[in-house]
């Protein structure tokens, strides 16, 4: 029992229960309506104290900006309050299960954050003399060793900045290898219909054309269709394994074999590596290149949409074409080779300025060291166990897309069970928000009707999994019982009701602009 400030017990007045109570000022209790920075701040307000400049900018003449920039400033307390209030409108892993399939939303250990902020890593300039960055090079080398060992691949390019950037790196290596072998005519990439959108987008980005590979009824690559499409024009296949249906490609070794036999390379989308880390090495499957999303498998935080990191492991055939920079062991220890032309004429170029996402390397390495060989294997096992548990628990009320056999780290359902209810996958997902969960990935992969792709990850307790399954079961029962409004109007209890995305796209308003009638807060 809590006590009021005058020492009397506080008790809710049982009679006053209102279902549609609204505040007088627009907020919802602790959830405040928060204006934009530009409506709050002023051009003359600032939250920093800087010394005056000793010299003016007269030497710059007409290069000086004469007109107002149009920024708004806030004092420090106002800044804290503005962004903390905004933060409270977000769902997050730290609040509840975040089952976005193919995104691997696992717990982000705070030790990793602490390590990445050590001045010896965070306050290190990418171009300071290499003799002053030996520890950084050593860390990158150790990270590379772990990635190579875990994948069974001989080489790794660390610099790609996210998964899609890693795909680009892998395809550029493949393209360079074909060109070096006089096979520049190989310009087709075969991609399963269930692939991530980044796969065909990446292929097109390097000037390749995309052809789709059919899928079998049990959610795998159709080997016969693949073989029929493999020819002298094919540069590579891009296959996700485990695939986006959450299934391991049983024929993977044969898939690699026929691709190689046809002169094509095998690019593996490593987005789902979490399912097999420590148990299966992609190198043993015949993979030539695979990106590893450090922000998925190795727990670097997703940060509201990045930054990620997408190192690419490469087979011996592709390793010579890896982009600059890379680390070599020479007499004095480790050396960063930054210029491709000098030491390896075959390197295809450069993915970005500098060395890649060092901040993510530190976090991922701290995570690997924390888990070790034994822990990482347990990661895959628990991730797969959790997904199969969800699949088993929900199969009574929902329809799994591939009921036969186990899934890997994600459980895929279709919308057959919603037929006739008047509720769509989207509605169901929005109703999950009212129950306190982030929705699963919806309508992906495209090959499954009304797809719901649930990836719990290994960092969920059985209690949280049960809470999640109980909520989805209750919703499923409600949907089938005709409680349609609960879904079609959802969410009711989120910081916002359903948002009008059509309006946003029809009349794009992408920046704040001072409306003529509005007060001149930031003129």
């Amino acid at each position, binding site marked *: 029992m809590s006590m009021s400030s005058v020492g009397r017990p506080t008790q809710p007045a049982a009679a006053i229960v209102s279902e549609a109570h609204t505040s007088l000022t627009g907020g919802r209790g602790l959830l405040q*309506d*928060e204006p934009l*920075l*530009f409506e709050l701040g002023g051009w003359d*307000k600032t939250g*920093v104290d*800087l010394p005056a400049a000793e*010299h003016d900018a007269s*030497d710059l003449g007409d290069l000086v900006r004469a007109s107002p920039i149009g920024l*708004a*400033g806030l004092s*420090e307390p106002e*800044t*804290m309050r503005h*962004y903390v209030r*905004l933060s*409270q409108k977000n769902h*997050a892993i730290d609040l509840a299960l*975040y089952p*976005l399939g193919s995104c691997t939303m696992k*717990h982000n250990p705070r*030790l990793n954050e602490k390590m990445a902020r050590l001045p010896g890593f*965070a*306050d*290190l*300039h990418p*171009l300071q003399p290499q003799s002053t960055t030996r520890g950084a090079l050593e860390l990158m080398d150790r990270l590379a060793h772990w990635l190579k060992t875990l994948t069974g691949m001989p080489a790794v390019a660390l610099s790609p900045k*996210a998964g899609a950037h890693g795909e680009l790196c892998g395809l*550029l290596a493949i393209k360079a290898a074909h060109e070096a072998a006089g096979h520049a005519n190989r310009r087709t990439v075969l991609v399963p219909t269930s692939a991530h*959108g980044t796969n065909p*987008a990446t292929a097109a*980005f390097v000037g390749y054309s995309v052809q789709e590979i059919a899928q079998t009824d049990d959610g795998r690559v159709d080997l016969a269709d693949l073989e029929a499409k493999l020819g002298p024009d094919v540069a590579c296949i891009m296959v996700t394994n485990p695939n986006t249906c959450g*299934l391991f490609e049983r024929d993977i070794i044969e898939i690699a074999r026929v691709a190689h036999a046809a002169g094509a390379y095998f690019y593996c989308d490593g987005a789902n590596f979490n399912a097999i880390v*420590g148990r299966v090495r992609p190198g043993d499957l015949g993979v030539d290149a695979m990106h590893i999303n450090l922000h998925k498998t190795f727990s670097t935080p997703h*940060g509201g*949409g*990045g*930054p990620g990191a997408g190192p690419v492991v490469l087979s011996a055939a592709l390793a010579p074409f890896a982009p600059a920079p890379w680390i070599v062991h020479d007499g004095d220890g480790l050396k960063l080779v930054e210029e491709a032309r000098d030491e390896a004429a075959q390197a295809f*170029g*450069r*993915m970005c*300025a*500098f060395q890649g996402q*060092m901040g993510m390397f530190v976090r991922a*390495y*701290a995570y690997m060291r*924390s888990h070790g060989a034994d822990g990482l294997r347990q*990661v895959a096992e628990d991730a797969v*166990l959790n997904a199969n*548990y969800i699949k088993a628990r929900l199969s009574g009320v929902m329809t799994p897309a591939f009921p036969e056999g*186990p899934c890997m780290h994600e459980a895929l359902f279709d919308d057959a069970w919603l037929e006739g209810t008047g509720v769509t996958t989207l509605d169901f997902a929005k109703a999950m928000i009212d129950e306190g969960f982030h*929705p699963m990935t919806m309508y992906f992969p495209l090959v499954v009707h009304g797809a719901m792709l649930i990836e719990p990850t290994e960092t969920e307790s059985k209690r949280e999994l049960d809470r999640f399954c109980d909520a989805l079961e209750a919703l499923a029962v409600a949907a089938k019982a005709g409680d349609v409004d609960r879904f079609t109007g959802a*969410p009711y209890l989120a910081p*916002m*009701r359903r*948002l*009008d*995305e059509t309006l*946003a796209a029809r009349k794009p308003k*992408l920046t704040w602009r001072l409306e003529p009638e509005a007060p001149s807060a930031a003129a």
Partner: protein
Amino acid sequence: MRYLPLTPEDRAQMLGVIGAPDIDALFVDVPEAARKQALFDLPLHGGELEVERELGQLAGMNRAAGEGPFFCGAGAYRHHVPASVDHIIQRSEFLTSYTPYQPEIAQGTLQVLFEFQTQVAALTGLDVANASMYDGSTACAEAVMMSQRVNRRKKGILSGGLHPHYAATTQTIAHAEGMTIVRLKAAIDAEAAVIDAIDDETACVVVQTPNVFGVATDVTKIAEAAHAKGALLIVVTTEAVSYGLLKSPGEMGADIAVAEGQSIGNALNYGGPYVGLFTAREKLVRQMPGRLCGETVDAEGRRGYVLTLSTREQHIRREKATSNICTNSGLCALAFTIHLSLLGETGLRQLAALNHSRAREMRDALAVVPSVEILTPRFFNEIAIRVPGDAAALVEALLADGIVAGVPYSRLDPHAGLDDILLLAATETTTPADISALTAALKGRIAR
């Protein structure tokens, strides 16, 4: 294993519910030959203390920029970031959320992105900004790729003042896509040669200001020349604080402006993660790469924000997307926006003025060092100097004096024949004592 909540009893119970005899039964689809039964040859799990010790040791082998006089720039800059910035970005709701696919429970991230886009558009003097790219160099490459979608031409011209890493990144991607890239010769005043290179087949011209040698240029004439030939002008900036003092790309006629945003809100991080800024004129918006956040209303008519115009993007358009980018630099963009909120118009102008002032002091001090030639006429916070002999060797020698004296140009571009050029930056973190230490040590080393 502190990150794994399942107990052995949980696992047994769950296998029971699934109807599997053991965990191996769930991996039955993996071909026999690829199943690893033994543990990998890697260390076993370690406690926090053990891991912290190992990483602390590695960090200790590096010399942090803040340990002494430090003058490196060339695309990454050491600035002071207010403590509140890092505090806010470590809030769970920002740190451990993802791309705002469900806008009803991601308004925090979305409103920040809308503020970020507004700030970036204001800084660059252009109309629309996206929700960030990986970094400045990849933003530059994407801008060049975008230009060919706009005018259907296949040739890009890169100024010799463009950061060599940016040029290499752009060449790598453009080459793969079949674009021709003309990279002009590196020179202090490289912008002067740009106009003559523009022809009727030019898709875009890429000019950096301040350029890699620190030179600030008015690119208005280049914009006019590009537009006269139907080409786009892409303006690159690697030091975002310069927007607080210098004319914006938009004011000078840029069609697309890209920048490295690291300077505002983000640490040096040995090269990443950083945050790429990408802005363009409004009429080009449908050719832009990356995520865009837009304003809308919810079912009750309340203002809110969503990701929009996603028909440009890979998850909808697949091979017809404007880019393959998915994950970008959300948290770095958040840090950028918070820092810029703290600065505001006044603070950014003060900060920029202070940077310029410190660089003037550095320039004046270096100007009286015998045998040192100042090469940069008009600059923001970075200059190039010519030193007797090899600049890289000089930097190594000055380390013994406790000074990190900048970036030898040859580190960026070993084949340019500019081995005697040293790039030095000064920011608000540079003190008069740092500058005195630099010039004293330089005098000593050059005299020897």
